[in-house]
């Protein structure tokens, strides 16, 4: 039984390490576990009305898919990143949901390119980017670079 205790202690230690390393931005801390329902964003500091409406609509469309429960939308210069979470029992159909969503979005907004991802990492990074963009010294250029980085993450397979 001591083996189990050792493993358990290891587990607890890791939890402590994790707790110690947390950064201070509140929404990204819980983003993986709770529904955070982030506001849709554009990387331009002062988005015009049209752009804001567009991202709102994208979020609405994505949220309307039945199995999806939390959506983060960030619009970059060219691409729009849609990160979402899938209800656990629907995760078996994750590939199907992704292509459904792709289809819906490209039908509704044929003029825009979308990157959709159900990956927790992408969602987390989208939230983190949103938090960073709130800081005044975070430039648009930096934000766009960061967004491209996130999008390139979705293409990594191994």
């Amino acid at each position, binding site marked *: 039984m001591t*083996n189990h205790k*050792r*493993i358990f202690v*290891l*587990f607890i230690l*890791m939890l402590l390490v*994790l707790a110690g*390393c947390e950064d201070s931005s509140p929404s990204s801390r819980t983003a*993986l576990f709770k529904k955070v329902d982030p506001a849709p964003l554009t990387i331009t500091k002062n988005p015009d009305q049209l752009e804001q409406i567009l991202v709102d609509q994208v979020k609405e469309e994505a949220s309307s898919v039945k199995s999806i429960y939390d959506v983060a939308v960030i619009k970059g210069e060219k691409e729009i990143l849609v990160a979402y979470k899938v209800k656990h029992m629907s995760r078996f159909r994750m590939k199907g949901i992704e292509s459904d969503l792709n289809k819906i979005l490209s039908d509704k907004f044929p003029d825009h390119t979308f990157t959709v991802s159900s*990956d*927790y*990492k*992408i969602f*987390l990074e989208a939230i983190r980017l949103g938090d960073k963009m709130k800081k005044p010294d975070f430039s648009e250029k930096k934000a766009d670079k960061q967004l491209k980085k996130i999008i390139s*993450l*979705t293409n*990594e*397979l*191994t």
Partner: protein
Amino acid sequence: MAKKKKTPQQKQYEQLEKKYETKRPVVKNCIKAFFVGGFICMLGQFISFLYIYFFHFTEQTSGNPTSATIIFLSMLLTGFGIYDRLGQFAGAGSAVPVSGFGNSIISAAIEHRTEGFVLGVGGNIFKLAGSVILFGVFSAFVVALIKTIILMARGVM
């Protein structure tokens, strides 16, 4: 594996011996395997979560570092003589997760170091894991080959 036909006498003894043979506690073993195996997988989930949260890994890519970490932990437990006891307790619970694969390689490597690093460790490191790699690779080859041919025939590729 050639199985020879048993004589009536041998069959009779087999019957008799069965009566006295201690039965394997299948249900108890399965419960133990379930909890230990489940725990190792949950630990894996936790580690992959750490990789996602703190490093640049996605759900897709976190699998590899997670396996490597589990194998590293398995090396420590094997080296300190804990894993074989865990194995006796948990059976498949500790053999089926990738930590068991690591254990089979690491235990063989440690065991044969007295015979030298080249012939001992080098020659025996895959003593147990070799069959897993062989059948994994060969079956994957066959499966992927069939799938590729089917996809090509359909003109998808």
